[in-house]
């Protein structure tokens, strides 16, 4: 960690001081610099693009903010954010172990189909109806990711390649199964609609008939579980250790193959949940027009949130805000693609900003050490150890 002692000598130790000791001012400012800088840069870049197109940036941004405040769009935003969040968590479980699970896309679409099909066949069953749907989704997602995991541990196939291929297969398989097992509704084909007991009720929000998906609680629970497992258990430590240095992990007795498989299964299991908020909360059927692309959005959000449970939640909200608030832009004559540009610029600049801040922090630390070495050799030696 960046040595707390570096900020100066502490005489009295109050709660504020303890806080300051834990989060030194410089460290906080540096931490703020990266995301704030990235978002500011994205604002600047999109302002330039808007100005070049003859639009007023401030009018565009205020329109987006006003749009997000409207109850219906706010609900849409929250709903989309929780879906993004689940996808990001699924991706980040792999990231923690240096596994690049690009297959969340295929995993969730097959899982949503499976859950929709099984859920549509069942009648009654009370609360177990939903539980069965969730289990089916997680199992299908885990199984599909497990294929890539098995290929990796038994045959050494890179999970990047296998999950991309499995995505393509999932699309074909899902389409085939939908034709085989689905029913037509006008020009669309869908699974048998899920009856009331298999649906998840939404939360009302004043000012709109749109409901916040009840799956919000599941998304929060997944986030908490993710935080606990990765940060507070031996298992999570092993995952992280394997990701950081595989040889070291092996040396300290971690079974890397087993961890790889388990991480893929967990990632796939969470990926299975991605399609459920919309399925159980709104459409109640899986059709040809189901939402796609969520798995890829999850990769971007996991990167943006740096695999942190809170960071990814914020990134998901930001992503969803940009996407949904852009709807109103068409009405002021601005192409809503500007939102996609902002998403891209934010992602790129966050990655760059983190790296710049990391380097700058390193330089500062080296300077501190050098200065202290010159002044008081004894303390400096001690400092170098903690830094």
């Amino acid at each position, binding site marked *: 960690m960046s040595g707390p002692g570096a900020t100066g000598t502490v005489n009295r130790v109050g709660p504020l001081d303890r806080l300051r000791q834990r989060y030194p001012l410089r460290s906080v400012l540096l931490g703020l610099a990266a995301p704030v800088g990235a978002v500011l840069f994205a604002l600047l870049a999109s302002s330039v693009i808007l100005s070049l197109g003859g639009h007023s940036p401030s*009018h565009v941004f205020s329109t987006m*903010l006003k749009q997000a405040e409207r109850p219906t769009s706010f609900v849409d935003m929250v709903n989309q954010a929780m879906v993004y969040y689940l996808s990001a968590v699924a991706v980040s479980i792999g990231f923690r172990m240096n596994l690049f699970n690009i297959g969340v896309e295929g995993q969730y679409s097959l899982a949503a189909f499976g859950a929709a099909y099984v859920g549509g066949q069942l009648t009654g069953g009370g609360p177990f109806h939903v539980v069965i749907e969730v289990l089916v989704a997680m199992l299908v997602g885990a199984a599909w990711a497990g294929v890539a995991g098995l290929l990796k541990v038994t045959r050494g196939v890179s999970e990047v390649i296998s999950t991309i291929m499995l995505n393509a297969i999932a699309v074909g398989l899902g389409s085939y199964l939908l034709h085989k097992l689905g029913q037509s509704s006008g020009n669309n*084909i869908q699974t048998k609609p899920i009856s009331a007991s298999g649906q998840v009720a939404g939360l009302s929000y004043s000012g709109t008939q749109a409901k916040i998906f009840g799956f919000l609680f599941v998304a929060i629970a997944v986030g908490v579980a993710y935080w606990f497992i990765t940060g507070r258990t031996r298992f999570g430590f092993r995952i992280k250790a394997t990701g950081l240095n595989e040889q070291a992990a092996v040396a300290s007795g971690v079974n890397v193959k087993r961890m790889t498989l388990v991480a893929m299964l967990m990632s796939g299991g969470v990926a299975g949940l991605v399609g459920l908020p*919309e399925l159980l909360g709104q459409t109640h059927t899986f059709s*040809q*027009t189901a939402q796609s692309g969520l798995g890829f959005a999850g990769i971007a959000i996991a990167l943006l949130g*740096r695999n*942190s449970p809170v*960071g990814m939640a914020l990134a998901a909200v930001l992503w969803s805000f940009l996407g949904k608030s852009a709807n109103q832009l068409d009405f002021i004559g601005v192409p809503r693609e500007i939102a996609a540009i902002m998403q891209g610029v934010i992602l790129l600049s966050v990655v760059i900003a983190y790296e710049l801040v990391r380097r700058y922090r390193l330089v500062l630390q080296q300077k501190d050490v050098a200065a202290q070495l010159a002044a008081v050799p004894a303390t400096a030696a001690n400092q170098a150890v903690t830094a």
Partner: protein
Amino acid sequence: MRRFSSYRVAAIAGVAASAMLLTACGSDSNSTTTPGTSGSAGSSSSGAAGGSGLKIGLAYDIGGRGDKSFNDSAALGLDNAKKKYNLPDSDVKELEAAQGEAEADKEARLTQLADNGFTTIIAVGFAYADAVKAVVAKYPNVKFAIIDDNSVQAPNLADLTFAEEQGSYLVGVIAALKSTKHSVGFIGGVNVALIQKFQAGFDAGAKAADPSVKLTDKYLTQPPDFGGFNDPTKGETAANGIYDAGADVIFAAAGGSGSGVFKAAKAKGALAIGTDSDQYQSAADDVKDVVISSMLKRVDVAVEKFIDSVKDGSFKAGNTVFDLKAGGVDFATSGGKIDDIKAKVDDFKSKIIDGTITVPTK
């Protein structure tokens, strides 16, 4: 050590970002009461009701205006109505679907139009069925229309569908008559029931004109990937494959991907047939001459008739089928490439209209 501290940076960064977002929300929303800095952009949304009373909103399917096919056909209908009723730009709004969007996005698009004061709303494409179902009841005073779907019924909704198989049958006849190798191909944008209906008609027509004809088919994408309606490169690749396998006429029922098929036809010295719009007119100049005909799906007629009906108060809810008889589907003759066989095709056409021929839909 470094890795550890970067995780902590991430956590703090996250909090920081949220704080920033929240404060940004707070400060900007306070200042939105005076969006005076806006330039020309603000004018279109405010649009006071025009003299005609018509305020038309159009929600396109994937590809939007400019796909030179399905969506453009709807756009033509809108343009005609706009001209006819002399509507200012502010009374017409066109929005476009994104690839792979959520159900909520489709609903939001229609809601957005209704909330912004558009009282005549057209959803272009069956993908809007569920969204229309959710929205129609909330806006009883708004007249809705949906193209290509009849699964939703409501007192303020017109379901406009087409007998695509009939038009496809006629271009099937054209393809078979124009093929010197007795081999024709079909390229569908996305493998959905609607496009299968095109193929059923096309195959039947080709067989009727030439029982020995060889039929090949290829769909560009499988749902839920609807990219096949807007991917000329995929169209070109698929067409090259079919031409190489011996076909010399291809019917491209693939929306915006059709331009790729025409390009392949040009390169192979073969022929192609377009869909929905008269694609001889819209194709690039260098590939025009390979487009011998198009299966016209007159979405423009349906859109214009719907707008007329709202305007003159004769709006009728429920399903209207635009078939060959009603002029809802047809074949194009621009370019004069099928003048020699037009009489034969017209013969089939009259037989379908009088019911002597029943065209299969599957």
